[in-house]
């Protein structure tokens, strides 16, 4: 039996640095395997939609631009995604991966969470279909992808 069993711990803490991390002033590097934002490589995709079927959160859509030549656009909803990486495992062609850098995902507008991936030309085609008569946005300015 003793009084103040944690007294030494407390005393020692007076002379050590606080355990609190100073984020956002000091950014720690995320672990290499961190499940951050999803990315997609259109070149390898066959359009099998297994990733879409297995996603538990309904977070990915695969939009067909031209099935014969295997042109697709992936619309990813980062706000619905649970970062489980099931889609990465489901894809047999290794089109999908999760970035360990895209984890500061806060945004003021909901639109910022909808990201479209695809080749420049395919994205432009999709934009033309979805926004008839608005004119293609200038190159480099992908529609509604303010997450980067």
């Amino acid at each position, binding site marked *: 039996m003793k009084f103040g069993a944690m007294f030494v711990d407390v005393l020692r803490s007076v002379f050590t640095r606080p355990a609190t991390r100073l984020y956002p002033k000091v950014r720690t590097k995320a672990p290499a395997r961190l499940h951050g934002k999803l990315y997609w490589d259109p070149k390898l995709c066959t359009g099998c939609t297994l990733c879409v079927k297995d996603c538990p959160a309904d977070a990915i859509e695969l939009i067909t631009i031209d099935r014969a030549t295997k042109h697709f656009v992936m619309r990813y909803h980062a706000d619905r995604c*649970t970062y489980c990486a099931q889609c990465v495992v489901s894809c047999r062609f290794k089109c999908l991966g999760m970035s360990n850098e895209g984890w500061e995902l806060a945004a003021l507008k909901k639109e910022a969470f909808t990201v479209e991936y695809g080749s420049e030309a395919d994205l432009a085609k999709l934009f033309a279909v979805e926004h008839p008569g608005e004119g293609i946005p200038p190159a480099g300015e992908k529609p509604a992808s303010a997450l980067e």
Partner: protein
Amino acid sequence: MTTESLLQQAESLLATMSRGSTRPETNRLDVVIESSGLVPAVSALKNARWGYLTALTGLDLGVEAGVVEALYHFCSDAAVTTLRVRLPRIGGSVPSIYQLIPAVGFYERELAEMYGVTVTGMPDDSRLFLPDDWPVGVYPLLKDFDPQSAQPVKVPPPPRGSSTGERFIIPIGPQHPALKEPGHFEFTVDGEIVTAARMRLGYVHRGIEKAVEQRNWIQSLYLLERVCGICSHTHSVAYCLGVEQLAQVEVPPRAQAIRELIAGLERIHSHLLWLGVAAHEAGFDTLFMYSWRDRETVMDLLETVSGNRVNYSANILGGVKIDITAEFAEAIRRGIDYLEERSRHYLDIVTTDTMFLQRTRGIGAMTREQAEHFGVLGPLARASGILRDVRVEAPYGAYTRFPISAVTAQAGDLEARFVVRLKELFVTCNAIRTILDNLPPGELAVKVPRRIPAGETISRVEAPRGELFYFIRSTGGDKPDRVKVRTPSLCNWTSVLHQAIGCQLADVPLLLAGMDPCFSCNDR
């Protein structure tokens, strides 16, 4: 006794009540009984001290079959005996077995409100999970449930807290400054002494058991992982084991070992979290802050290894997603060395600090007999001297290759619960080291078909809070037909509510915390 002889014993005990029995799996016995035979059957098992009631599953066989089944699962080591009572879909009735097994109280209330089965003779038949404004006669787990029919109805305001003479009912929760969890308790007090206790759940019920019936087998994994944010991995292991059993696939040894490893890290995180919460409830905030600071070590390890901090998503059906390379193994070794040293220090503190011991020693003591009577599980049972641990009684996955030894204590009071959980950390650290030293080589996963063969299975795993029970039924499709989840918290409430009676009201918060209740596990 071997599993086989246990099952034979159960079969002969139930012979007079049985209307037919089957052996669906090597460790299981299903006995069909009539509802009039339920009480004699349960008495027979109880009098012979054949295991304990682990869960009560409701099962709707569909509109065409016109049958709802109530399944009473009893476990003794690895053997599971299920009493199957077949009832008409509308107007079915079973007698309550509360007088024999008090822990069944919550299960019977759940069966009644989710399936519309009348349970006659329940001491408390008020709503447990469904909201107060849920319409009467609408049962959400029936297959033909129409969400449109669940329009809220008007309910009269609840009665004012009544007082008769010197007695008061003190309501606590669901919003209360001293209770940070969404539960509602009513403690009747006479002066400072509690004379009766009740509780109400369901404030954050998510209907996960219903929701998985609309998702495919893979999607369900992630939903079930989210039953609990603390033992998420254990839930996904329980589900995976069940599905893999139904699909008859053999998970590679390396994947099994990695599952046990993650489960070990999760147990460390859970117990350290609990240590902090329990210390906080006792007013010992220094211990709370230091234990939570140290818990960050294991959280960081989990994040490094799996990529996620809470829902690790380490499992897939058929194996795991992640490998443990030498570099990760080194990081884990370093982390658990530090944590083990800290845990020894904490064990020293909780067993010697005079002030703290006044809040824990001899408080809420539960004898072995009481613990058995209330059917408690996990560290709560082990602190009362019952060796109840699925990892030891019915080893699954890698626990056959990397066994652990169960920690028990005899006193059954709050102090014993601290000691058991802290000593479990040492056992877990050692198990993790053994796994890292002997990680089997090989594949990480095998293929599991998208359609799972029809059948029923039971999977039991040991979560940090006690035995987690899954009943999984497939009809051969790409979606589960039924997944029943019985979490350890739901089991342990009964004992704690009974124990609160006769205690000082001031001891109740610590008594509740001593059980390590998980509200999100309750409100699946």
